[in-house]
């Protein structure tokens, strides 16, 4: 039965481009998400509800809302991203697509980056787009709303990227939700502080470039380091399953 090797070994040069593989992962995630639209609406609905309930629960006064509106929106955005994180790898883990993803010859951290970007497109970006409407509802002025949107635009990808590490680490656990929050919230705090700080500075008419530069630095740091950490965490989680 020892035939000669007629099925040739494939050289590394016969590779599918990494970008091509990344875009395949990205588009599959978007496609799956659009087949399940109610899951897409969940974080948005949560975001809207928290923001609408705040004036009712605390105070509908214009002065109060003007002062704390940006904070409310940032906290609500942060929490709704946190809520959506558990799904990032969970379904793929359950149906086995994650195993197949790990066995693709492309570097895993880039494929994870593609998945995380898809997650941001589906949660972070819609939140940013909804923010102007809710900002006006909280009596924020135009300048504040614009700054707020900008900080969320830079900040929410950081939330997705950092959150992916936690989601990957807690993948093998049965009740991952609480642990995930405990792991991730401390890492979210700097982003929250500088995000809201920027809007406060803008409201006082101070310069915001320093704040934005810091937020940008967070984003660059997360973009370059978080995918490595997530990929390593995924390896550990799958190894133990």
């Amino acid at each position, binding site marked *: *039965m*020892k*035939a*000669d*090797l*007629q*099925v*040739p*070994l*494939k*050289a*590394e040069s*016969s*590779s*599918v481009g990494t970008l*091509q*593989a990344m875009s*395949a*992962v990205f588009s*599959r995630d978007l*496609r*799956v998400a659009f*087949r*399940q639209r109610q899951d897409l609406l969940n974080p948005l609905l949560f975001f809207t509800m928290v923001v609408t309930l705040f004036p009712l629960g605390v105070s509908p006064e214009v002065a109060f809302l003007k002062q704390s509106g940006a904070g409310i929106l940032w906290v609500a955005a942060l929490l709704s991203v946190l809520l959506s994180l558990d799904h990032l790898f969970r*379904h793929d883990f*359950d*149906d*086995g*697509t994650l*195993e*197949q*993803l*790990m*066995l*693709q*010859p*492309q570097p895993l951290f880039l*494929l994870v980056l593609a998945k995380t970007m898809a997650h941001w497109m589906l949660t972070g970006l819609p939140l940013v787009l909804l923010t102007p409407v809710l900002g006006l509802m909280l009596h924020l002025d135009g300048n504040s709303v614009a700054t707020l949107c900008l900080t969320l635009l830079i900040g929410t990808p950081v939330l997705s990227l950092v959150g992916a590490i936690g989601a990957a680490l807690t993948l093998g656990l049965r009740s991952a939700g609480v642990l995930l929050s405990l792991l991730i919230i401390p890492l979210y705090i700097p982003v929250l502080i500088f995000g809201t700080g920027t809007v406060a500075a803008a409201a006082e008419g101070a310069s915001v470039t320093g704040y934005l530069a810091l937020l940008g630095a967070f984003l660059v740091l997360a973009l370059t380091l978080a995918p490595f950490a997530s990929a390593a965490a995924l*390896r*550990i989680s*799958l*190894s*133990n399953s």
Partner: protein
Amino acid sequence: MSEPLLQAVSLECERDERVLFQNLSFSILPGTVTRVEGPNGSGKTTLLRILAGLNDAWSGELLWCGKPRDQQRESYLRNMLYLGHRPGIKPLLTPLENLRALMAGRRPLKDAALLQALAGTGLSGYENVPCRNLSAGQQRRVALARLLIADEPLWLLDEVFTAIDANGVEAIEALLQQRAEEGGAVVVTTHHDLNLPGMNRIRVGGKAER
């Protein structure tokens, strides 16, 4: 004589403080079908996941074409196809979309080739039905369609016969046999009574040997 594709030297794996196997050595030669045998819970799946590179909790040596496997991860992954317990099929996508996504990172093919593979597993007419509306056996067939278009020399197949009907089982057996004749190497775990001429066996659980 040909070189072994994959070689395991005194492989040892411990899980939950229980030794699943130790001193397990074997070679996977091109042109062979190898069956991993053992009772439930003896570590068949674990062995296959170790071979695939999904499980890192092992000691010993794994050689791919004579060199340590973990030093040539990319070339190994490019030449190895693993089908696990969980078929890797997204219930919300159609068989065609699933197959396209699974092949995209390895060998993108034209839709015609993918459709032909799906037809080959008896799924013609279901190409555009979401997989969650298909039966368990049909979902596994979507994953098995990859075998019809796979060009990897090494296949690691975990419980391929699960939920497959008698005709399907026969077809897969024939496919594995044909694959071995073409020079590919196949490692399978199954509880199904697979008996191909010239088949190798690896026993795990109980006494570790060979």
